[in-house]
């Protein structure tokens, strides 16, 4: 028999996903990949919300997830638009190439 899934496993998974996302954001230079890393971190947060909401029997946690998803969707629209227009203008640009405004 498979042991019952402990709530802490979800949290561990979420931490792992968040860690991967954060690590990816720091080390990758491709804007698209960095964007995906951000999504990964957001979803790690969502997973935490859902897990804890179930464990504590509080519906508010699940509600927050919807907000996060809506904001993430809106962010994707704007962010992808910017990334596409940058790549169209300068094909193959990395995030480090976009440093014109540095001091």
């Amino acid at each position, binding site marked *: 028999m498979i042991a019952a899934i402990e709530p802490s496993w979800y949290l561990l998974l979420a931490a792992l996903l968040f860690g991967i996302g*954060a690590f990816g954001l720091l080390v990758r230079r491709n804007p698209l990949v960095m964007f995906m890393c951000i999504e990964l971190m957001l979803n790690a947060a969502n997973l935490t919300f859902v897990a804890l909401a179930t464990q504590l029997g509080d519906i508010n946690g699940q509600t927050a997830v919807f907000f996060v998803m809506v904001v993430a969707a809106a962010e994707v629209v704007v962010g992808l638009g910017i990334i596409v227009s940058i790549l169209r203008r300068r094909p193959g640009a990395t995030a480090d190439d*976009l440093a*014109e405004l540095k001091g």
Partner: protein
Amino acid sequence: MADLVWLIPAFPLAGFLTILLFGRRLGDPKAGYVATAAVFASFVVAASIYFDLLGRPEEERATVVTLFSWVPVGTLQIDLAFLADPLSILMVLFVTFVGGMIHLFAVGYMHGDPKFSKFFLYLNLFVFSMTLLVLGENLLVTFLGWEGVGTCSYFLIAFWHTRESAATAGKKAFVTNRVGDFGVMLAMFLSFQAVGSMSYSVLNESAESGSLAASTATGITLLLLLGAAGKSAQIPLYLWLPDAMEGPTPVSALIHAATMVTGGVFLLTRINPVITVSYDWVPTTIAWVGAITALFAATIALAQNDIKKVLAYSTVSQIGYMVLAVGTGAYVAAIFHMVTHAAFKALLFLGAGSVIHGMHEEQDMRKMGALRAFMPITAATFIVGWLAIAGVPPFSGFFSKDEILLYALADSVPLYVVGIVTAILTAVYMTRQVIMVFFGEARWTSLANAEEAPEVAEGEPPVETHDAHGEFKPHESPPIMLIPLVVLAALAAIGGIINLPGLFGIPSGGTYRLEEWLHPVIEFGEAKISDTWAYDNKYLLVAIAVACSLGGIALAYAIYLKKRLPPWEPTLFAKGWYYDQAVSWFMGNPGRDGFEAVAEFDSKVVDGTVNGVAVAVKETATHASKRQTGYVRQYAGIIGIGVVLLLGWFVVIRGIL
């Protein structure tokens, strides 16, 4: 009718705008006629308001007409309001009438000038400003006019600005007037601080009711005296007026003799209750400023050779009389002399303009003489002006000057002595001028030929210009210039009737008319002299005054026409007591060093502080901006580290969880 007082400044303003827009199209001489008509229209309005006020009981003769709220700032409420009362209407009457006459004269005088319409543009703007000055209901409206006349004066003195001396004289007048203006501004601030208003009625009523402290009243009076010294050309700020003669002669007549320079005396008369409640030494100071200026300028006038310079110093001297009158509490006499002086000095200046015109722009009296045969009307009217200013009865100047001397003696004997000496000098220098210009032998023939002949001999074609080439002959001016002379001569001759003294059996209905008219305005400040020795010996004073003026004339006759006595014209007088040079030296050496020190302080300390702060901020910002590398990953890393540190702080140190 008095509600229409705003029309008085409106007409010259309309004339100004018309000439501004259509001046070049109107051209010479139509622009001049438009300007003249505007000023006379104001005169008509002023005259009808005068009759309106005359028909009212004495205490209802002041009307305030508010056009709009001008400066509504908290407790500071200033309206653009006009005050139609006996004093302002009297001022407006003579300003617009004499001004209109001078406009008419200028149509002839400025004929052919390339900037003809611009000249009348400035003249109308001047009359507009002057009416604002005298009609203003509060210090700020008056100050608006005050600055306006100063600006126009600058434009008009420097009218022929291609001439270096004219441009310099304009600047000098402007800068000197600024010194006085700062006094007026401070007086306004002080008035607001003391009574919460700049309105004359509030200020004067607080003085009359005794709620204005003597120290505050003294401050306001002294600051306004400084302003008056600038505008009315009194010591120590009179310097600009003689130089202002660089402007066209009608300007000298209008601005620097008849109207603008009386602004200071007007302002002091306007606030006479404030002067009255000042410390006792304040009126004495005013009187001495006037007396010393009168004497000082008269001595300088004695030795001038420029026909206009004599009249300029004479103006300074005569205004000194008015200030002396204000200081002795003789406000009626001051205003009386202002009116008669406006007539006869405008007449003398226009006469001088006519002479200059007839002599082809020659101003040196040493190159004139015997002109009465060539310019009979100019000569006749000039002689009327001469008799008026010299104080020969029954010409107007005699009455007004006598009144001032009466009050001066009632106040103190030294003031009277200075006044009498000045009267003698006035008679001498004016007689000298009349003789040098109109009598004696003609000095212009020889001089004109001697100077102009070589130019002709050099083989130039004998150009038929208006200049003094070869056959030089003075000519009488055109009728448009003579009409104002005749009208002003009539006024200068009979102007005394507005305030005849109660002497010589003149019926009482005809005496002291001006005093009755001005009574509501100057009631509080006018000195009471009915129990003084001077008042009881009026006939003696009249006899002394007449003897002095006739004696002065006789003395000058003996010196300059009969040549029985050598002329006494020390260089000290001709150079104006070296006052101008002294001021130039002072401002040029210690003054300049002082200003340079201030400039040094400004550039080193003040600018250094400001620039130092700016440089420090800039350096810091440059270093700080180096941290902005533009690498997203670095920012993300820093955010991450920050989050970890914050969490660590919450968990480990604060012990949450």
